[in-house]
């Protein structure tokens, strides 16, 4: 089990964004996390990568307890996180953003990333702020891939990306999983496309796991029910 969470609770002040989440992501799998707006998907990823500290519960990565460790430590352990809405450093150039992603890696995946995202190639020297919305998203994903992580957390990676690019990313993720055993935790609003690439899925509602199972086993009806659970 590469990543596992047990009874994780995360609060923002009085709001319990995660309310006892149990979750495990086996090695070399692509796991989707689904859920309505505000279900706690983003919070789940931020808690795993150490950007917010859970108030209780435990998270292990490769058997090591990482609960409460600083985000940079976790990142250097080989966990990549592409946060919601990019997270590129707009003041740095494209090249510097990429370099940053590969600092901890002996041979960063520079060429691979440029192959995956051709639009970045001729903009390496430009300030990241000049990029278009989709190009920034590419850069964010590219930066996470640079360091060749073993686990990748993706928060709505297809946001603002053209269909071709989204498909290419999914292809690469599957390819990496097969070649290098990359483990992926994928948050998507578009349940259908997420389920089509994932093996497993968790559905969150009100900060807790409402449903989980293999991707095929989760039907659209069941999903709807879990989503609607929000209004119960």
């Amino acid at each position, binding site marked *: 089990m590469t990543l596992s969470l047990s009874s994780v609770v995360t609060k923002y002040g009085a709001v319990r964004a995660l309310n006892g989440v149990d979750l495990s992501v086996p090695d070399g799998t692509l796991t989707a996390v689904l859920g309505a707006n505000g279900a706690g998907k983003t919070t789940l990823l931020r808690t795993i990568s150490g950007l917010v500290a859970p108030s209780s519960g435990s998270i292990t990565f490769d058997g090591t307890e990482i609960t409460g460790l600083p985000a940079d430590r976790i990142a250097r352990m080989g966990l990549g996180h592409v946060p919601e809405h990019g997270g590129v450093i707009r003041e740095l150039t494209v090249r510097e953003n990429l370099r940053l992603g590969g600092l901890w890696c002996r041979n960063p995946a520079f060429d691979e990333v440029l192959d995956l995202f051709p639009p970045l190639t001729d903009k390496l020297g430009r300030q990241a702020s*000049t990029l*278009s*919305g989709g190009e920034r998203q590419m850069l964010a994903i590219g930066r996470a891939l640079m360091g060749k992580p073993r686990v990748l957390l993706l928060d709505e990676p297809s946001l603002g990306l*053209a269909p*071709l690019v989204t*498909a290419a990313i999914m292809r690469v993720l599957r390819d990496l999983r097969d070649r290098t055993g990359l483990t992926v935790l994928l948050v998507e609003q578009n349940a259908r496309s997420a389920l089509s690439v994932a093996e497993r899925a968790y559905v969150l509602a009100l900060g807790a796991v409402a449903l989980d199972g293999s991707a095929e086993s989760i039907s659209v009806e069941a999903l709807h029910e879990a989503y609607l659970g929000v209004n119960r």
Partner: protein
Amino acid sequence: MIELLSIEKVTVRFDGLVALRDVSLAVEDGTVLGVIGPNGAGKTTLFNVVSGLVRPQSGTIRWCGTQLHGHRPDSLASMGISRTLQGLGLFPGMSVLDNVLVGAGPLARSGPLSTLLGLRRAARDEAELRDRAMETLEGLGIAGVHAAMPSSLPYGIRKRVALARALVAEPRLLLLDEPASGLAADEIDELEERITALSTRCAVVVVEHNIDWVMRVCSRVVVLDFGEVIAAGRPAYIQNDQRVIDAYLGVPA
């Protein structure tokens, strides 16, 4: 049908990079025009040119027949053009209602002096704007959160606030930059209905990557690639254009 906005041979360059090359298109009243294309194709730049945020190197833009020349972004709202920004672009330090009230600014009639002195006229004006803003929020089903700060709201709601801000001034042309991105499936369906309803009142231009949605919502679609219009026409036609498939769609949708 009246031609509201027409863009003729607009070219935009950013030191060495051609973001738009000789782009021409027209928006007619009561239609929903889709603008699609690969990332970096120049869609947002097109909006920016219309809004006056980016100056084109060449080409002209007409609004209701008159040429806009060196217009400023803030002059647009009072002309009847509203836009949303890619992402959110809300004012984080202001409540939902205040956010929408800012958009209602062009409707205000009292001058600065009467506002400064807090005269009755200003108060009446303000009350009217407030009603209008609340109505708009209600229309989008989010009147309940009018006092909340944007940061405390789910993304989908925030997107509606941004839409409300653009809608409140009752524009004749609405420019929406990726309105469906980040929304859940049911929200996307709702948005479709809303825009269809809107199109009876104003013209809409949407930039969007959710191609199924674009096909459902738009009556016409323009496809940009590397800053050039590579195809334009009805959705069904666009979907099967080989250049569009190669550049953008990958597989026919």
